[in-house]
């Protein structure tokens, strides 16, 4: 029951979904829609696991006054504040009015957006630093990569006079010909990998998702 039933479930539902793709009959579609309806609900409960983990870890740090425990308090404040606002100050759990709550929207617009956008904008500086310290044309392959990158970066640069239109066309050709070939090969390889792994999971060869007993 602990291992055999899950393996059997994966096999039965996996095979059903493969066959269902080729069977457009009404009853096949009905079962398909029924399963999808259930999966949305199961999936939502699964995602709650991550939130519980965060609360547990943060509360643990605060309770035992571990290093930087104050910041975990800030995390918990942010989390519970959004929950209170999202339920319209805990007045409304049944309708979606909390999504239009003033504080809920403003916390999103003026806290989440600035911080998340800025955190990723730090990458601009790290790429500049990496360009200076790490991007070396040590071999033919690295040189090919750098030259292709330079051409694509200069594609809309007007400061090269008569060469500029040719740079634009070269960049366009690079993207639509060798880049296309390379990415197509990767896509095909990844596709074959996905199909192989999915088959291994359905047939019970790959059982890592079951975890340990």
């Amino acid at each position, binding site marked *: 029951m*602990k*291992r055999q*039933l899950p393996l059997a*479930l994966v096999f*039965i*539902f*996996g095979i059903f*979904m*493969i066959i269902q*793709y080729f069977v457009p009959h009404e009853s096949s579609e009905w079962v398909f829609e029924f399963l999808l309806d*259930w*999966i949305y*609900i*199961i999936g*939502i*409960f*699964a*995602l709650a696991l991550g*939130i519980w983990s965060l609360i547990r870890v943060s509360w643990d740090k605060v309770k035992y006054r571990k290093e930087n425990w104050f910041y*975990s308090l*800030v995390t918990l*404040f942010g*989390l*519970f504040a*959004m*929950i209170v606002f999202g339920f319209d100050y805990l007045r409304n759990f*049944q309708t979606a009015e909390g999504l239009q709550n003033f504080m809920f929207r403003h916390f999103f617009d003026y*806290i989440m957006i*600035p*911080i998340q956008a*800025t*955190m990723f*904008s*730090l*990458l*601009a500086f790290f*790429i500049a630093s990496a360009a200076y310290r790490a991007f070396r044309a040590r071999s033919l*392959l690295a040189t090919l990569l750098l030259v*292709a*990158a330079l051409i*694509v*970066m200069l594609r809309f640069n007007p400061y090269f006079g008569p060469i500029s239109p040719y740079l634009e066309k070269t960049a366009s*050709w*690079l*993207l639509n*010909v*060798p*880049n296309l*070939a*390379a*990415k*197509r*090969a*990767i896509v*095909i390889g990844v596709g*074959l990998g*996905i*199909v192989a792994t999915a088959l291994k999971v*359905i047939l019970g060869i790959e059982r890592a998702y079951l*975890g340990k007993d």
Partner: protein
Amino acid sequence: MEAMSFGTFIWTALGAFLTLATFSFLYKDNPLYKLAEHLVVGVSAGYFVIILWHNGLVPNLFSRLADGNFYFLWLNSSKWWYLVPALLGIMMWTRFIRKWAWVSRWPMALYIGIATGLAIPLEMKNRVLTQLHSAMRPVDWGNFLGNGFLDTAAGFSQVIIFVGTISALFYFFFSKEHSGVFKGVARFGIWILMIGFGASFGYTVMARISLFIQRIQVLEDFTNVAWTTDRGIFLVVWFITFGIFVLLSIYEIVKYLNRPRSVQ
């Protein structure tokens, strides 16, 4: 630009302050950055809980369990069978209890079975069959050199696409030793791959710079509005906020330039 209300000014000032606090990481890790980082983690998690509740559980589960046609204990629904996926979902939570963690495998198996079964025909068709079909187009020998400089529709471009795709696939085939003709083909393949990665890198640089430019635009918006507002106190608050960061930066630069040097 219209002068903004005091409330909007305060919120925008908060956004600008948190932006600058996050940028301060470029100098070094500091309490302001840590504060911003932990705050966003909490706010994001709380936001996600609300979205899952209002967009997920309420319409897909709770509304269906309360549609008013069937009464059993507290349940008021003609679609009582929706309790089954709810129960399966709750069974997922046993993952945290070591003794009962095996129970979470059942709903997990349902999800994995459905997801993998769905993936096989679609990914096969999408990634493999359609792409192979597109790679095997007839070459336009009549227009081999194309019209103009590096024509992507030219015959030679189509040949490069076809040969490049096959060669790159050869490179990834590790079940056979890369030697002789195989090695030559694989080498051409890795050249094509490097050009592809170079093109991606060029685009990546643009992407990263864009992220920073947008932050400049937002800070500029705030400065413009604070400048044009008719309340002097807004300007004072903005200059104090911005000034603190500028002064701290100047202080740190001066401290760095005057640091004690080690004797060599």
